[in-house]
């Protein structure tokens, strides 16, 4: 299926334009080039407007009336004017189809806005000559270009890089159902289920016990449906939360772990304060040592002399003293021995006189000398050991200063890392991440409990089915209905299983095909290992280190990934439609752009591809590749007064 021709009449700046997509080469590839404002996006919108009556790229924007501005002036002059877009589509099976949407405008009313007089949508089928109008035409259109999946064949390249940032899993799954025609199996499944339920009711009328069991079964079926809805909504919430967690983790991975940094900072600060106190104490010890040393050092000569004297007196036998000089002198004075009380004779008197003259140190002084000897030795020892003590304390002080300097450096580094970032914002994001992780835990628990309930309900339903079967077998009249029910139930099970298996196969094929296309197109292919698509249709790109890096892809890589995915969906799901892309290469450059060009060449080998580009986008990187295989190339040319665009087919390039 391909677009054969587009005819625009009074649609915005296209007053009278025809674009004929007649295929002239093997590749069904077309390029429409126009500068900003010449109408590329309006051409894109025109096809959407013709098919679906809406202009997607103008949604939520204030816009000029759809009628061409020159014609708008004529409407002012009371002439009814029409906007018309005709799209001719050709298909091997249905021949050529012409879709036409037309809107007639009445003259200005009091509010000065042109008012719509009439709007119509029709389809002309060339092979039968039939004309279908409005709803019938829309029905036929929806079979060929389902509006639910329009974004998979007519899309804006600028929006593609945000495609996987939105939680689109459910939409993608729905689109695959549509374009793989699996919705046929869904219809059959629903209809067989209706027949099975009606058969049960019929059996119930024949056998009341069956009716009772049927009621119970319907009640259980409702419970099953409820629990399935809860599972679906919980899975959706989980996927949403997981997708946000993924985004936040990616985002936070660019920042330092501020929580850890702040904790480290507090610990280092405590160690810093402790070391500073130890340094203060050690400096005080050093001062005390110096003071002590000063005292001892200034007295060193006296200490040394004192110790020498004591040593000398010891060697002379004067120390320790052998007699008390004071007692002897007192004995002489009273002429009596003060120890034994005996009066002194001359000989004793002389003997005591001799002892007194031989005794050079008094007992009192001798005792003092012996007492201070230890102190003097200590002082001497202290002076001799001062250098060791000084070095030891000095080393300790230096060690503390070095430790403090290291700690200070660490504090500065942490402060620098913290200062560069908005700590509050990062902490807020961390908190959101923790909340989301808690939510995921809680939802996972819910999901587990729901799934257990679902299993129990299914077991209950199976038991009721068996009971109904047993009851039905008892009634001969019910045999036919019973047979029908069994046949439909068996068929139903086959449909469900076939549907699930096809879905699983399609997912695997899309995964494989997306990976191949992406790795073929992206220039940094060596850093990417594989592309994964999970059961919720969320995409991951795994790098060679085994990490999911989809959140850190560049805008250009994201565009290539999304385009690979969409092309893979077309290839795998068998959706035979053209691809119309507005600004497909705006966010790419160099090798990526060239690779994208090669991919468009490959796709256009068996699918029509129409690209809308600006002259800048159609750089030599891509034009050198596409020009060789293009079927046609068009230029959009804006008139002098800027109100009309004409389409020129470029004959040679």
């Amino acid at each position, binding site marked *: 299926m391909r677009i054969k021709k587009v005819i625009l009449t009074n649609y915005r700046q296209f007053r009278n334009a025809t674009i004929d997509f007649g295929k002239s080469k093997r590749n069904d590839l077309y390029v429409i080039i126009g500068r900003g404002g010449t109408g590329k996006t309006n051409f894109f919108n025109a096809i959407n407007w013709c098919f679906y009556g809406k202009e997607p790229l103008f949604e939520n924007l204030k816009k000029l009336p759809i009628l061409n501005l020159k014609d708008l002036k004529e409407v002012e002059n009371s002439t009814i004017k029409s906007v018309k877009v005709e799209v001719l589509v050709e298909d091997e*099976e249905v021949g050529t189809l012409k879709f036409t949407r037309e809107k007639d405008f009445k003259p200005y009313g009091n509010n000065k806005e042109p008012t719509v007089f009439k709007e119509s949508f029709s389809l002309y089928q060339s092979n039968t000559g039939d004309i279908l109008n409005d709803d019938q035409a829309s029905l036929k259109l929806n079979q060929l270009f389902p509006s639910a999946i329009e974004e998979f064949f007519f899309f804006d390249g600028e929006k593609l890089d945000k495609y996987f940032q939105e939680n689109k899993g459910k939409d993608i799954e729905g689109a695959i159902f549509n374009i*793989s*025609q*699996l919705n*046929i*199996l869904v*219809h*059959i499944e629903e*209809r*067989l289920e*209706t*027949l099975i339920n009606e058969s049960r009711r019929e059996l119930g009328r024949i056998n009341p016990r069956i009716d009772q069991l049927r009621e119970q079964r319907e009640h259980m079926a409702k419970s099953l449906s409820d629990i399935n809805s809860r599972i679906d909504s919980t899975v959706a919430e989980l996927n949403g939360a997981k997708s946000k967690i993924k985004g936040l983790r990616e985002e936070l991975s660019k920042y330092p772990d501020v929580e850890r940094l702040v904790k480290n900072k507090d610990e280092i600060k405590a160690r810093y304060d402790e070391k500073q106190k130890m340094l203060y104490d050690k400096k005080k010890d050093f001062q005390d040592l110096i003071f002590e040393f000063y005292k001892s050092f200034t007295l060193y000569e006296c200490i040394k002399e004192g110790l020498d004297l004591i040593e000398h007196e010891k060697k002379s036998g004067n120390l320790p003293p052998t007699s008390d000089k004071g007692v002897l002198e007192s004995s002489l004075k009273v002429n009596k021995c003060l120890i034994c009380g005996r009066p002194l004779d001359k000989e004793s008197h002389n003997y005591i006189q001799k002892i007194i003259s031989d005794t050079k140190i008094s007992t009192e002084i001798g005792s003092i000398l012996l007492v201070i000897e230890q102190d003097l030795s200590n002082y001497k020892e202290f002076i001799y050991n001062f250098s060791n003590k000084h070095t030891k304390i000095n080393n300790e002080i230096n060690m503390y200063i070095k430790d403090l300097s290291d700690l200070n450096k660490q504090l500065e580094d942490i402060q620098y890392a913290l200062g560069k970032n908005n700590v509050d914002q990062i902490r807020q994001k961390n908190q959101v991440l923790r909340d989301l992780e808690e939510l995921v835990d809680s939802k996972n628990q819910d999901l587990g409990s729901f799934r257990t309930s679902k299993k129990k309900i299914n077991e209950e339903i199976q038991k009721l089915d068996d009971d109904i079967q047993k009851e039905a077998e008892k009634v001969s009249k019910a045999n036919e209905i019973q*047979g*029908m029910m*069994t*046949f*439909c139930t*068996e*068929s139903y099970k*086959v*449909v469900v*299983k*076939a549907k699930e*298996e*096809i879905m699983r196969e399609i997912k695997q094929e899309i995964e494989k095909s997306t990976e191949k296309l992406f790795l073929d197109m992206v220039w940094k292919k060596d850093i990417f290992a594989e592309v994964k698509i999970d059961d919720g249709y969320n995409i991951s790109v795994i790098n060679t280190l085994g990490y999911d890096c989809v959140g850190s892809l560049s805008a250009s890589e994201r565009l290539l990934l999304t385009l690979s995915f969409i092309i893979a969906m077309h*290839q*795998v*799901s*068998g*959706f*035979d439609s053209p691809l119309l892309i507005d600004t497909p290469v705006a966010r790419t450059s160099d090798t990526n752009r060239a690779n994208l060009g090669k991919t468009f060449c490959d796709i256009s080998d068996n699918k029509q591809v129409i690209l809308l580009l600006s002259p800048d986008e159609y750089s030599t990187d891509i034009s050198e590749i596409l020009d060789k295989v293009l079927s046609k190339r068009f230029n959009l040319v804006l008139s002098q007064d800027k109100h009309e665009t004409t389409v020129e087919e470029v004959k040679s390039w």
Partner: protein
Amino acid sequence: MKKRDNLERIVEKIYDTTENNEISEFLKELVLAEAKSIGQWKEFYIRKVKEYMKKGGY
């Protein structure tokens, strides 16, 4: 892959999923009919169920 290949894949999968010829033939007919859209679906389904039940001796 063309649009009709999708239908072929669905039918092929149905044949792979069951060895019951009547069920696979019956479902194939439903798939092809649904692809073209069925007007009175219930009558059509019941008629086909009865037809294939008879073929299969149900």
